[in-house]
């Protein structure tokens, strides 16, 4: 990789998947993104500290999975705070789901997870993020590697794949700390049993289940497929999401496994500030 890029020059086309300026071929520049009003319709806990919110958003025309929204909360006295959250649901008109992990001492996530009731409102804008996204028009296999709450945008991709009915091979590798930390546990289990073309590897980093064949631990080379492992032998488009340490490690291992850097898209959730 260093050999290739050490000889690249600013005015020559760069041999990578990232466009050399300009939007992805055939697509106009997205935007603008006006603030829309969203109302909480329902919510449920995914784990003891993470909640999925179902939001009704008049004027919302859908998104590509992988994208996120910016939300804004305004207090009675005009004080406001904004944060970004990946969209958890497949594309739909007029509604979307977010899954929010509570950050202790945070300003926004405790409000969303602990205070907000059905009927309460917030503002949101989007969909944002034109790079980390998947659509059913993409034909190559997808390899999704998620750590912790990084599963959220990847789950949106998986849900979109199911909703659209395409047969694109999907391989999800989901690393959670323990079974108690799993988001979407029932849905993932059902998908694992019921959908040809969808492979789900559930890994644990700290402690797992009694009959797991893989002992709990950090992601390693053996956990990852080579680029030609998919049935079609076509190199997959890779999406990696999670805390920065997880993403750095996963991206390094994926490249060691033979995946080209320009096939790997990353979304990092730094400590979000709550």
């Amino acid at each position: 990789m260093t050999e290739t890029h050490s000889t690249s020059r600013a005015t020559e086309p760069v041999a990578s998947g990232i466009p050399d300026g300009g939007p992805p071929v055939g697509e106009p520049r997205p935007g603008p993104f006006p603030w829309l009003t969203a109302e909480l319709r329902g919510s449920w806990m995914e784990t003891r500290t993470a909640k999925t919110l179902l939001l009704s958003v008049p004027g919302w025309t859908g998104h590509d999975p992988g994208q996120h929204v910016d939300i804004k909360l305004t207090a009675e006295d005009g004080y406001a705070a904004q944060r970004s959250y990946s969209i958890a649901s497949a594309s739909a008109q007029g509604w979307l789901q977010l899954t929010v992990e509570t950050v202790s001492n945070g300003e926004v996530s405790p409000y969303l997870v602990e205070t907000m009731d059905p009927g309460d409102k917030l503002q949101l804008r989007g969909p944002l993020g034109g790079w980390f996204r998947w659509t059913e028009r993409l034909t190559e296999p997808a390899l999704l590697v998620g750590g912790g709450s990084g599963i959220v945008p990847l789950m949106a991709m998986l849900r979109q794949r199911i909703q659209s009915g395409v047969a694109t091979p999907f391989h999800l590798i989901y690393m959670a700390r323990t079974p108690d930390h799993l988001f979407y546990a029932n849905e993932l289990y059902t998908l694992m049993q019921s959908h040809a073309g969808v492979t789900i590897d559930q890994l644990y980093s700290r402690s797992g289940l009694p009959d797991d064949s893989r002992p709990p631990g950090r992601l390693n080379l053996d956990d990852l497929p080579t680029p030609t492992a998919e049935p079609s032998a076509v190199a997959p488009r890779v999406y990696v999401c999670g805390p920065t340490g997880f993403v750095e490690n996963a991206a390094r291992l994926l490249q060691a496994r033979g995946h080209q850097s320009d096939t790997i898209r990353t979304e990092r959730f730094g400590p979000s500030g709550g």
Partner: protein
Amino acid sequence: MSVISRGFGSKRAAADPRIPPGQYRTEDFPVLSAGPTPHLDTAVWALDITAVDGTRHTLSWQQLMELPDEELTVDIHCVTKWSKLGTHWRGVPVTALLDAAQFDTQDTHYALVHSYGGYSTNFPLEDLLDDKAWVVFEYDGKPLAPHHGGPARLLVPHLYLWKSAKWINGIELRPDDRLGFWESLGYHAYGDPWQEQRYVGD
């Protein structure tokens, strides 16, 4: 016109005039990027400065190290809402790089900055001159780590941090503006945090 979120606001950050609108202060240094971190060897590192007429001046790492550098302490603001105050860097002002290239900047109104891996971001040229932009290679007194853009990145503190291109490898001077990577994907062409110019239309 704001929509009030019932019950919000009991936990709030103290008001701070150094924090632009919509931002919150972090003591951490989050990492965000579109793809994997490149690992670059300074022995083969190069920075290409290209003039409007296509003339190219290439700086090696050794040549970068020979230019006058300075320490700077600045506040940085990421479009993902975090701001980090009082960050310490060492680098070479972009003005000094352009002087070393000895280009006539008369027809140059814009610059498109390039990174190893294909990333790019655009500027009016004046936003890279004087005390506004550096190519930095040290953070907090230590060599800049790869995941933060090392060995060298652009630093333009008065704009959102996506403009501070990590792993810089080129400055393309231009008579016209050309949108870079995030700008083409819906982010604001200029990106002033004090005007909250995050996305197209803001």
